[in-house]
């Protein structure tokens, strides 16, 4: 079953790089150092490599699957599992995308409240963010792709700010290498899932990307984006663990933000305020893409207007939001979210790929017999 998308709704293949990158970098990057150092100590950079490799393999499987079916998640589900079971699975994934949106939005609101405006109410921030997000989703995938592109451009000052601690690093902290047990290093890898949850959007975005020329270049951009994020996480982790003491990282709730605190420019004493403000462009692609994905599944399953679905979702998120506007509660939610993401990425997607292989073989055998 192939899925045809109108040419004027498609985007260029290189934009896939920004979409995947923009959706992967989001809320996980502000405090992943904490969780992984907790289980694997200063050796956790090995865990990042392991997780990066795992995600790479999953991405390869996913692109194979998408290429073979020439469709998106919904059509794959339909052709593999039939209308009802397939539809149900798509529905579950739609809810999964919705939970990502909830996590990202609520974490960012809390971040603003903790660092910048302690007296601002939840809705003041969340409604403004929702309006901006809706404006981009309203423009379709093309405008979401453009905000993903801008997100990388705007984050350049943040990347430059990371050079401030470079002269105060203690590389001794990394020695002796691999002094933690293998299970603990793998346990740390599992905690990285929140950092990679964005990859699943590929399943829905893929048909919207132009093939451009005879050779299909879409796959390579996916791989570039994944390797870039892994390298980014690795470098940031190495900076964190050599600037702070490994015993100390655990005590900072948002180590990445605390790293910005040492940037001291003559005209600006505190960089982290700028950082948090720019961060809005980093989480916008997350919110937009996840909401878009979630509403797109609803649209195809129930044939409802996508704008209506998005508005309903936004209202739902804003109504439930105050419940999560509380650090301990959000921490528990984040834990479940990362577990959910782990199952989705490293269990469900490989399962889908393997099921597809078996299904194909069975069909072939079946055809031969007759």
């Amino acid at each position, binding site marked *: 079953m192939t899925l045809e998308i109108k040419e004027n709704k498609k985007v260029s293949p290189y934009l896939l790089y920004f979409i995947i990158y923009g959706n992967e970098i989001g809320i996980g990057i502000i405090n992943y150092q904490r969780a992984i150092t907790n289980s694997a100590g200063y050796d956790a950079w090995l865990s990042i490599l392991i997780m990066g490799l795992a995600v790479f393999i999953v991405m390869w499987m996913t692109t194979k699957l998408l290429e073979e079916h020439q469709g998106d998640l919904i059509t794959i589900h339909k052709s593999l599992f039939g209308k009802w079971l397939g539809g149900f699975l798509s529905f579950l994934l739609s809810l999964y995308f919705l939970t990502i949106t909830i996590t990202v939005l609520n974490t960012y609101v809390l971040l603003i409240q*903790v660092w910048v405006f302690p007296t601002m109410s939840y809705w003041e921030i969340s409604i403004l963010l929702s309006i901006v997000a809706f404006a981009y989703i309203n423009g379709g995938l093309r405008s979401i792709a453009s905000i993903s592109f801008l997100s990388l451009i705007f984050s350049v000052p943040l990347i430059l700010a990371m050079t401030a601690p470079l002269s105060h690093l203690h590389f001794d902290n990394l020695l*002796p290498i691999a002094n933690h047990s293998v299970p603990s290093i793998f346990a740390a890898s599992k905690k990285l899932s929140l950092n990679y949850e964005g990859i699943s959007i590929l399943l829905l975005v893929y048909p919207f990307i132009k093939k451009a020329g005879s050779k299909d270049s879409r796959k390579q951009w996916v791989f570039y984006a994944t390797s870039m994020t892994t390298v980014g996480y690795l470098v940031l982790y190495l900076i964190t663990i050599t600037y702070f003491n490994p015993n100390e990282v655990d005590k900072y709730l948002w180590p990445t933000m605390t790293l910005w*605190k040492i940037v001291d420019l003559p005209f600006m004493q*505190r960089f982290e305020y700028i950082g948090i403000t720019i961060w809005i462009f980093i989480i916008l692609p997350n919110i937009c893409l996840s909401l878009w994905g979630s509403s797109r599944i609803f649209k195809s399953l129930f044939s409802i207007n996508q704008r209506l679905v998005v508005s309903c979702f936004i209202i739902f998120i804003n109504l439930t939001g105050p419940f999560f506007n509380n650090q301990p509660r959000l921490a528990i939610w984040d834990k479940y979210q990362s577990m959910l993401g782990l199952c989705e990425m490293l269990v469900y997607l490989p399962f889908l790929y393997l099921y597809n292989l078996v299904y194909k073989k069975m069909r072939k055998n079946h055809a031969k017999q007759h």
Partner: protein
Amino acid sequence: MRNSIRQLMIIIILISLCLTGCANPRIIDDVRLVQAMGYDYYKDHLLLGTVTSPIFFQSTGSGIIQPKSDVMSVVVKKATEIDNQLESKSEYQIEPGKLLVSLYNDKIAADGLLQYVDTLKRNPNISILTNLAVTQGSAKEILQGHYASNPLVSEYLSDLFKKHANSNFPQTDMHTFLYQFSGDGMDPFLPLLKKEDKHIKILGIALFKGDKYIDYIPYSQSFIFKMLYRSFRKGTYALSSTVSKYVSIENISSKIDYHVIPQGINGRHPIVEISIKQIGYVKESSSLLQGKYSMTNLQKILANNLQKDGMTLVKHLQRLQTDPLGIGSHVRSFQRNWSEEAWRDYYPNADIRIKVKVTLKHEGIID
């Protein structure tokens, strides 16, 4: 349909612009920026907290605005009450966002600094590079004093630390303090201050065991301390009185390297070899550098002196059972089964050796 949505969006976004500035503005004239804090004991168990904030008065005529330091102090039971009590004295909101220096009386420091540092660390408005220091005598007196060079004691102190971090004194700030406090096999240190008439003097390096102040190293030893602490540039070293002539050396670069030779059961009692390579030049000399004091001989004398002074310092630190140089943490990076308790037991008697090599690049512009 699409057009009407777009129009609605534009209207909503325009309306939301009215919200900017809703979030509690803090105008610079209407807040008190606390730049320095000080803690002392008052009578038995009460705490005397002192803060200074700059006030800018328009002086008539000249148009130059001279800042004045406003000092407020309160007596409280616990450190956390200080902010609260200060509000009762101040006509404006007190903002700690530009805190530069936080001072602790030596008696307070001896009882443990962590509870005070924790309040600074928790507040997202406060920089993690805030300077901390221990004062010999009252911290309030230092903050109240009038100094020749700068009317603001906070800026004076902050400049003092900044300058010293670039010469003989190791860098200290809240981040370094917390790093050393939480790290395995290392103890923190801070500068020790004393008021001297119109100036503030750095007496030396205040040594800590955990978060408790125990003793200090005099300022004259700080070059040796910094040399053993980490690689650095700049700083001056004067040959001590064992040499009849006065020679002082300017350091270009000092590089430190650790070698750990495993010894004992499980390598638990290693020999630690600290080798230091220094490059410098002669800055001052009381006479010609010839004969016994030729450049090559001088290099040897210097290396010997640095080595001897270094050993004395390390022995002293071992006797105090504190490890501000972080020798333990260096050993940790060499050993897979390093344990903090075992190291703490071994440290006072540890076999620590120092090797120094000095290269003098030039002797200035006269022979």
